[in-house]
């Protein structure tokens, strides 16, 4: 999607031998900046490259403005130019709101979002109520009229979530794919907050950098302190269609558990996606493990182990003999929002869980042990 | 469509070394050479399964011959254009149109836009009160009568009927035959296959009687007795 009347003069099909300097993020793998020269010859960060879902090649290149667009002799993938005239970034996912809020407490730079019912951020709700942020709906359909009349400077989506058809007005809305959900490391996921900062301006990028650095620093210190001699065996996942589904060894949850000084039983089963294990195999793994971790949505009273067993008969089979289950209840904690942007607190939560009663956190933990 | 004047000339249906049947099956009847000519009722009789329906449909040009030709007035039917075929021959199936929701007047309007002419004909056939009824809501007997009226309205020299009275009660059958006789009086050519031939015994409008027997087609005496016809099939 291209904004602007002129296409760069050159761009022979594919024969681009120029070498560029890139600024890559510390941990994240899904994006990087390409250093271009501005008209005065200075190196500026005016161009962001986002990879495809396999993280193999650049799928989208985003330019701050049309000057940057024209100064790139070798553009790759789909080219998007941000809309400087509009104010604010529109989001599709609650995670993206959190990645904005991580460095922008008041969400000044949030134009609005879709599926607002899923957003748990208090600040976001205030902005919506005050009318400072727009509700773009989404259920059952996106409010295209709102998109036209309140156009954001960028619309951040997952690659699958593009609500825009090919009407002429859609060319004025820059679509930015955000791939934080594919990052294998929790810090990598959080580092996408820098992208949101960059989408606004350099000052915001600086704020995002600072916010992330603090998160990374805390994460690292907690990680080092959590090293154990004999890590406890932990598994996650749930039963679906008669099989056990759990994140694979390269998923972010695996990294998180390992960094918390635990041993993830599926570590050797590689892949970022879910692994599927026959239930019979799972029975032995489950019972011998030290603890079982779960993310679920349970509203009402505090969930207990007996209630968990009632939810599905087969939970009884995989329950560890130790009867230790730790659960993140998404109805009570913004697991998909705020906690994505704060992997340091998540790590602290996990290490604290296994520390025993001597550990306490400043804020309400997300993962908690289930009572009987 | 001017009425009966054009029907006074003698029309001919010829079978020329004709074999009839269905694809993939053995021929039902083979190597027939025969001729039906002139206004009047041409009756075709035969036992069940002898091929009456297949024969009459092939003669009507509604089914392809397995071999040989069907000729109308000397022309190969397969080469006659569809519009000319439609203006030359009307057909009444043995099964009434149980799936058509068309009302009687809508069905008849397909041939005759003049509602008055249609009403007159309906009255003549004692169907006067039926014109708003759907074909599928009529009893089989009534529906077949409507189909006959439709065929008449098609205003063709030939009307071919395949077991038209299969669903009729006795009284209706007699009515049907007298109606067919009335048509013949106006110069129409009627070919009909039927089991009712005992009702046609001695009918002066009977032009020919053809029996389908083991050896093919046999011409019987139209003035002959019902028993004599019976003996030949």
């Amino acid at each position, binding site marked *: 999607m291209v904004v602007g009347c002129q296409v760069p003069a050159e761009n022979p099909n594919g024969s681009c031998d120029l070498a560029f300097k890139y600024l890559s993020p510390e941990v994240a793998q899904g994006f990087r900046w390409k250093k271009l020269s501005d008209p005065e010859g200075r190196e500026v960060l005016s161009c962001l490259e986002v990879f495809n*879902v396999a993280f193999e090649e650049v799928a989208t290149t985003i330019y701050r403005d049309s000057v940057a667009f024209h100064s790139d002799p070798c553009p790759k993938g789909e080219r998007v130019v941000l809309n400087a005239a509009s104010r604010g970034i529109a989001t599709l996912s609650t995670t993206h709101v959190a990645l904005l809020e991580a460095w922008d407490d008041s969400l000044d730079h949030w134009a609005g979002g879709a599926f607002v019912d899923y957003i748990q951020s208090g600040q976001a709700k205030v902005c919506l109520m005050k009318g400072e942020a727009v509700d773009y*709906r989404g*259920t*059952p*359909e*996106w*409010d*295209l*009229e*709102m998109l*036209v*009349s309140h156009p954001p400077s960028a619309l951040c989506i*997952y*690659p*699958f*979530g*593009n609500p*825009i*058809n*090919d*009407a*002429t*007005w859609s060319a004025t809305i820059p679509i930015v794919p955000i791939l934080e*959900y594919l990052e294998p490391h929790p810090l990598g996921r959080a580092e996408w907050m820098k992208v949101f900062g960059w989408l606004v301006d350099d000052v915001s990028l600086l704020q995002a950098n600072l916010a992330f650095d603090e998160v990374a620093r805390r994460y690292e210190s907690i990680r080092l302190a959590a090293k154990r001699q004999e890590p406890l065996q932990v598994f996650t996942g749930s039963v679906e*269609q008669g099989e056990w589904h759990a994140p694979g060894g390269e998923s972010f949850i695996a990294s998180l558990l390992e960094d918390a000084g635990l041993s993830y039983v599926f570590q050797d089963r590689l892949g970022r*996606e879910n692994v599927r294990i026959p239930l019979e195999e799972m029975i032995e793994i489950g019972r011998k493990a030290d603890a079982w971790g779960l993310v679920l949505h349970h509203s009402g009273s505090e969930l207990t182990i007996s209630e968990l067993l009632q939810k599905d008969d087969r939970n009884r089979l995989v329950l560890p003999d130790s009867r230790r289950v730790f659960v993140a209840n998404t109805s009570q904690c913004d697991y998909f929002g705020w906690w994505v942007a704060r992997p340091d607190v998540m790590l602290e939560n996990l290490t604290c869980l296994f520390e025993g009663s001597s550990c306490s956190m400043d804020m309400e933990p997300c993962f908690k042990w289930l009572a009987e | 469509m001017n009425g009966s004047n054009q029907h006074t000339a003698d029309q001919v249906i010829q079978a020329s070394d004709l074999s009839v049947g269905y694809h993939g099956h053995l021929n039902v009847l083979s190597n027939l050479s025969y001729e039906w000519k002139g206004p009047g009722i041409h009756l075709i009789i035969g036992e069940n399964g002898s091929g009456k329906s297949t024969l009459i*449909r092939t003669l*009507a040009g*509604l089914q392809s011959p397995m071999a040989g030709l069907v000729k109308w007035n000397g022309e190969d039917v397969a080469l006659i254009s*569809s*519009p000319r*075929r*439609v203006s030359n*021959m*009307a*057909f*009444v*199936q043995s*099964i009434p*149109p*149980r*799936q*058509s*929701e*068309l*009302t009687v007047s*809508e*069905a008849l*309007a*397909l041939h005759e836009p003049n509602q008055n002419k249609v009403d007159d004909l309906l009255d003549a056939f004692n169907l006067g009160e039926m014109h*708003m009824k*759907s*074909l*599928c*809501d009529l009893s089989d007997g009534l529906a077949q009568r409507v*189909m006959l009226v439709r065929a008449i309205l*098609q205003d063709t020299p030939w009307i071919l009927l395949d077991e038209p009275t299969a669903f009729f009660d006795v009284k209706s059958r007699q009515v049907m035959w007298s109606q067919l006789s009335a048509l013949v009086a106006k110069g129409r050519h009627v070919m009909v296959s039927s089991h009712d031939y005992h009702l046609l015994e001695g009918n002066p409008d009977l032009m020919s009687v053809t029996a389908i027997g083991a050896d093919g087609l046999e011409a019987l005496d139209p003035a002959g007795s019902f028993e004599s016809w019976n003996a030949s099939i």
Partner: protein
Amino acid sequence: MFNGYGTVFQVASGMKYSGIIGLAFAAILILSISHLLWGSTTMDWGSLGSWFGSSPELAATVFFEVRLPRVLMAIAAGAGLGISGLMMQTWFHNPLAGPSVLGVTSGAGMAVALVVLTGMGGGWLVNSIAASVGSWLALALVWGVSTRFRGLASLLIFGLMLNYVLGALVTVLQAEAKENALQQFVFWGMGTFGQATLLTAGVVMLLVVIAIFMAFSLHQNLDKWTMGEITARSMGVDESRLRQLLILLTGLLAGSITAVCGPVAFLGLATPHLVKLLTPHRSHRRLIPMTALIGALLALVADWGVKGLGVFEGGWPLNAVLSLLGAPMVIWVLIKRNFTHS
């Protein structure tokens, strides 16, 4: 077959055919205007003219590029699917046939599932192209085998089985898909008029108009067809040509509509029955125009359900609204059939 609709409404209101047509036109006009006037944006009506200039104002863009295409698409889809359903029901002598019996919708669904669920991902343009290709492939398959089947029941069952096979393949793809992709596919399956642009709505509208004229030109043949194949043939109906034309028209109508809107439920199946409830006429010369109008009307009504009747925060997905409107109608048809068929 049966005709047990009892022409309840017609008798009650004492209206002639032309009266109902006039009323339908008026209702379509009123509903269209209501859709154009109401939306989530406050409109500066004076600036509408700017759309014809070089830089249109916001209100003009909203009106001409969001509201207008949606209304046009609803009308085109309702009319097109209604006509398609009528032709299928007449052709198959079956009151429960619809445009989907020939596998058009499931062919489109299969193609979109392949594109979306295997991660080739795509916006609405890619989905539309995939849907078109899929529905035409399914139709080509049906066309190819239709000559080999004796009897309509065989063709109908073939279409049903094709639907099952394609549906099963889609289920397999769904089981293997990632959550995001699955969600997108589910959204596509809900159907919508809201993804139409002025261009796509215009193209579909044009195709629908052409198809309706073509269908109308066949009205006598369709009437003759109801009386049985042999009788129809004796009245000059060329069965294979009629079959090919109907398959082509179904492809044009259902295929193009599914490409832009996703699989739209019930309009094809229920509209002809609603029309037959409103009028005692059964000749296609009368049924075709009324089916087009009533279909358009139903679509416009359903779209208010999607918009939450303008009152509620969120409505329901299009197919849900249509099914809630359409299913009671089909039930009514079945009940009437059981009680009045002799």
